[in-house]
């Protein structure tokens, strides 16, 4: 099968691609839930301005952390994973 046909069928061309997907899928849930919570916090009438700001700051921190992890995942390569294994003393 040609490489482009494999891509068409959604088959992994590289195990790193599958690892990236498996790491980003739960991050999608975390980021999405943080966004939904932020919407609810902005609308909540019972919160004081200070409480609302503190909660939104916390949710923004979650979003920032998720996107920092995404940047690391996007920067992963086979070589970097192999190097990491060697550093950890694994075969």
């Amino acid at each position: 099968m040609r490489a482009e046909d494999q891509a068409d069928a959604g088959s992994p061309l590289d195990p790193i691609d599958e690892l990236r997907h498996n790491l980003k899928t739960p991050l999608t849930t975390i980021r999405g839930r943080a966004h939904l919570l932020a919407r609810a916090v902005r609308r909540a009438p019972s919160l004081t301005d200070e409480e609302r700001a503190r909660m939104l700051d916390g949710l923004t921190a979650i979003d920032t952390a998720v996107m920092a992890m995404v940047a690391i995942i996007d920067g992963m390569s086979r070589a970097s994973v192999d190097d990491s294994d060697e550093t950890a003393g694994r075969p």
Partner: protein
Amino acid sequence: MDDHRQMPRKHIAVVNSSPDFLLLARDLFEEEGYHVTTSEFSSTVFTQIVMQQPDALLVDLAVGEPEGWELLERLHGESATADIPVLITSTSHLLLEQVQDQEERYGAHRYALVKPLDLDELAAAIRDLIARD
């Protein structure tokens, strides 16, 4: 009473292999006032879409999972579904570029969003797709 409450709610269908994402999408789009149906990929999902005729579809493309590609190809190829606007998502920029490079096979998609998604961006894209329909 607001006039819009008299209007039938627009229907968003979401197809994704992640149950967590399906719950997230349901919560988002119901909050936005849509009628939402969610499905994991299966042999019956295309038939469901034909019967339901949603106003917009959200379909995920995943590495190693051909079901999303097959669904897009079938949606584009069948007259009963070819005009349903589809928003595609993926964790992979590369997959989104590949599907957009093959419009004749998979259809033209105005929105291809990379995950993790910005939910405000997703909601705005769906509003735009439905407004154009």
